[in-house]
């Protein structure tokens, strides 16, 4: 890699001082003159018809400035996915029917919180309760109550189907017949929540110019604008979603949320700013939680452990509306086929409506569930065949340059190296054997080691598909970076500044960032689908290079040299072979403006993946390309299990990963650490308990997330497969999502290694481990 000054360095985040001093303004901190407090009335019933809503008493209460119901709305539905096959299925405010507990029915804006709450209690509703179904497999039965009519093109013997993904290749019957060993297993994944520390929050101000200004804790301002504008019947240009700092998201702040719509509707009614902030209880009881998934997996292998065929059925409970249900069943297919070669496959995934809360993406979106299934089963197969877990993975891992069934290439895929490196660095084979011997001993604490593998796509084509960036050179050679990217904590603004600094040869601190405002900045794919660093980063690179070229061209003229013979240092452009011949950036900027009769120096850059591919992949058939870049990783977890209590402790997770190359190693490590922690929570600690569609552990006291005492030691091994060079766009890969999957799978395998207990339903609460140990004892006794 050529000598780089800023890219590839562990540069501290640019917003560090603002955050460390408490100056960073989050949505919860936004305060405007005349601002009202908004509150949302939610359904107490999981499924009911609304016969009548009477808001007259609430409206008369002193201090109440606006009350809204569906009668004030345009009754335009929206959905996380909106396609001809999957049309929008959710009103942002319930019209005549509610389908889950907590569904939004009305909103109130008042002078203070107490008045707003009292007003909610004065809204009178006549209900007619409807039959309910909460269990996803029950909801598929023919006699289940209908929550939405199934789509006409989904011709299935099942009920309540929100969507289906089906894809196959090869000859399944033949492949299973020829397999040396066939295993079938079923895995269940619990419902979890993101537990972002900043609750859902929105401030909406519909001003007298007819513009709706919105501050909201989100993962992408352009997606929010599009959905707000469409459901409110406003032109995009009349909706301005503005930047705030975001106190964590992890997938839980995408899509349009009803409280955002209600805040806007309230402000449009009373022309005053309205602020809605969820209490933590409301976050649990009213917002969207992470998608669950059932995975039925049948795998046939050859005698040497090579996968011959896989048949997979997934069932997703999307809740009362589609949410991202039809996406998670599509993605789960991808996470099954990307890391390992599967010559014959049949996949069918169902997303099913129930009367539960709506489910949405969480970091990894399907990967942890699919990898838990595949990686657990592969270890079971390996054990039956007498092959070690490392060897069986090496035999199946995709090699560089392989084509995936959707036509994507894994390109410089470093998975083989990741598996080898992580095994070597953790002394996996020796420890694996030791754990097996220890299992037979009488010791109370058992140790185990396990491995998990995942691969992940980045920057796929989903609205708005591409990113644009502008780099402005000011007269004094200071630089403004204008981007629609929103920094949700991953460090987007820092990484983009590093790239601009690198291209322009100026310090990172001197790049001023203006970000995440739909009116004053440029379109951006957003901080989801794992593509911001790659897509927006390349747009920033092109924008900076575009501005730089203008300076170099004018400098070449002034210095009477070829632009190729020029170099830059300390904001000066000089001639390579005679460094004394030089002009400053400020002089070059002035010269460029003069030459172009006043035009200022602005660089533009645009980027999207697969510019020549016209269409998105099909959610129904999984056909069509996704992306140009696949990350991959092999992760090893070391655990100890207390056989008297069933408590599992994750001691260390080692990650060998191919993220292309780390543009900022410290930020990359931070992403991995966070995912190790989230994976640990998912596999061991976290579960939303739901009774009749209502969350019954709605606080951080009853829903345990990892605290510092649960901290897992982490180690990282970079497998570098790409590079950054000045003259071409770069290929960095995903680093912020899929690592959860490797951790979950590795811990599951490590728990088995330690105890012989094979668990197929997360989370692995101590009672499940104890049950497993008891069953082993019973078997022995027989």
């Amino acid at each position, binding site marked *: 890699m050529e000598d780089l000054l800023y890219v590839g360095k562990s540069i501290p985040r640019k917003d560090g001082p603002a955050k460390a001093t408490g100056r960073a303004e989050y949505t919860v901190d936004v305060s405007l003159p005349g601002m009202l407090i908004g509150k949302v009335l939610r359904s107490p019933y999981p499924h009911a018809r609304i016969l009548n809503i009477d808001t007259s008493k609430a409206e008369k209460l002193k201090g109440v400035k606006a009350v809204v119901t569906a009668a004030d709305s345009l009754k335009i539905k929206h959905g996380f996915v909106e396609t001809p096959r999957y049309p929008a299925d959710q009103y942002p405010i319930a019209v005549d029917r509610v389908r889950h507990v907590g569904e939004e029915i009305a909103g109130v804006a008042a002078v203070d919180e107490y008045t707003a709450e009292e007003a909610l209690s004065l809204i009178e509703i006549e209900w007619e309760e409807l039959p309910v179904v909460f269990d996803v497999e029950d909801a598929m039965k023919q006699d289940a109550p209908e929550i939405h009519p199934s789509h006409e093109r989904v011709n299935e013997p099942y009920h309540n189907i929100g969507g289906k993904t089906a894809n196959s290749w090869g000859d399944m019957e033949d492949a299973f017949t020829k397999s040396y060993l066939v295993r079938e297993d079923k895995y269940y994944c619990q419902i979890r929540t993101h*537990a972002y520390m900043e609750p859902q929050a929105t401030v909406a101000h519909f001003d007298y110019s007819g513009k709706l200004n919105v501050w909201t804790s989100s993962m992408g301002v352009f997606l929010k604008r599009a959905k707000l504008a469409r459901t409110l019947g406003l032109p995009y240009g009349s909706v301005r979603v503005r930047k705030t700092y975001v106190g964590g998201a992890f997938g839980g702040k995408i899509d349009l949320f009803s409280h955002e719509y209600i805040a806007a509707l309230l402000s449009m009614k009373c022309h005053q700013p309205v602020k809605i902030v969820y209490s933590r209880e409301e976050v649990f009881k009213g917002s969207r939680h992470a998608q669950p998934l059932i995975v039925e997996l049948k795998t046939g292998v050859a005698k040497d452990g090579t996968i011959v065929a896989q048949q997979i059925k997934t069932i997703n409970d999307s809740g009362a509306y589609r949410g991202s249900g039809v996406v998670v069943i599509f993605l789960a297919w991808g996470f099954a086929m990307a890391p390992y070669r599967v010559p014959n496959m049949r996949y069918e995934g169902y997303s099913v409506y129930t009367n539960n809360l709506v489910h949405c993406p969480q970091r990894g979106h399907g990967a942890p569930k699919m990898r838990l299934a595949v990686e657990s089963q592969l270890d079971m197969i390996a054990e039956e065949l007498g092959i070690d877990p490392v060897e069986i993975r090496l035999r199946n891992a995709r090699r560089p340059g392989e084509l995936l069934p959707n036509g994507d290439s894994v390109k410089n895929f470093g998975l083989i190296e990741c598996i080898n490196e992580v095994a070597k660095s953790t002394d996996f084979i020796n420890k694996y054997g030791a754990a097996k011997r220890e299992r037979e001993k009488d010791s109370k604490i058992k140790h185990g080691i396990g491995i998990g593998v995942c691969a992940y796509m980045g920057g796929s084509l989903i609205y708005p598909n591409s990113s644009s960036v502008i780099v402005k050179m000011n007269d004094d050679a200071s630089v403004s970076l204008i981007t629609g990217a929103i920094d949700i904590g991953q460090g987007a603004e820092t990484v983009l500044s590093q790239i601009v600094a690198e291209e322009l040869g100026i310090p990172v601190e001197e790049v001023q960032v203006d970000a995440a405002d739909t009116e004053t900045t440029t379109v951006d794919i957003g901080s989801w689908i794992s593509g911001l660093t790659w897509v927006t980063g390349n747009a920033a690179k092109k924008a900076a290079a575009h501005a730089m070229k203008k300076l170099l061209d004018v400098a070449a003229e002034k210095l009477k040299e070829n632009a190729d013979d020029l170099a830059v240092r300390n904001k000066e452009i000089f001639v390579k072979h005679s460094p004394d011949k030089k002009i400053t950036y400020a002089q070059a900027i002035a010269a460029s403006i003069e030459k172009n009769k006043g035009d200022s120096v602005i660089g533009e850059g645009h980027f999207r993946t697969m510019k020549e591919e016209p269409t998105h992949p099909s959610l129904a058939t999984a056909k069509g390309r996704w992306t140009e870049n696949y990350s991959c990783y092999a992760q090893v977890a070391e655990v100890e299990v207390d056989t008297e209590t069933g408590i599992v402790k994750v001691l260390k997770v080692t990650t060998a990963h191919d993220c292309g190359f780390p543009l900022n190693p410290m930020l990359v490590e931070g992403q991995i650490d966070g995912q190790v922690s989230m994976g640990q929570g998912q596999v061991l600690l976290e579960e939303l308990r739901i009774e009749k569609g209502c969350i019954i552990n709605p606080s951080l006291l009853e829903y345990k997330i990892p605290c510092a005492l649960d901290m897992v030691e982490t180690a990282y091994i970079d497998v570098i497969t790409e590079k950054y060079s000045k003259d071409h766009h770069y290929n960095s890969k995903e680093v912020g999502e899929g690592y959860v999957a490797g951790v979950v799978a590795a811990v599951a395998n490590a728990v088995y290694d330690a105890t012989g207990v094979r668990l197929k339903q997360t989370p692995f609460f101590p009672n499940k481990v104890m049950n497993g140990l008891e069953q082993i004892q019973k078997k022995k006794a027989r």
Partner: protein
Amino acid sequence: MNKSQKQLISLKINGQEYEFAIHPNRTLLEVLREDLMLTGTKEGCDDGVCGTCTVLLNGAPIRSCLYLAIEAQGKEVTTIEGLAEGEKLHPIQQAFIEHGAIQCGYCSPGMILTSKALLDSNSMPTEHDIKLAISGNFCRCTGYNKIVTAIKACCQNAVGGH
């Protein structure tokens, strides 16, 4: 609640005296954020669980969501706004930035103040001391690794005399 039920109180926050009238049922967190616009102190759960609202009271960490403002009279309140001297950051703030201990930043004010209270009372804590001290401050982004590293670095700096 009507106006007559308001009570005049005086608080000393970050070395500055404030005098104002509030309803006595209001928490220190509400008063800091809503009346004094010291919004660096965040609300995360309002149950006293997550530690996001931590401030120091006579140097000890408390959860301002569970603490009535009137009880803080006569005591020294330190919020995150009181840590830096102008643009000069406190060494703990500096360490958090340098070691990547901040991601979304929402827990950072509470986390930094808890760390300060620890280091003020124990300049050479063990790793377990550190984890125990911050175990009531939730962070969903970092997995705590780099936070612990940053706090350790402050101890080393102290030994080195910086």
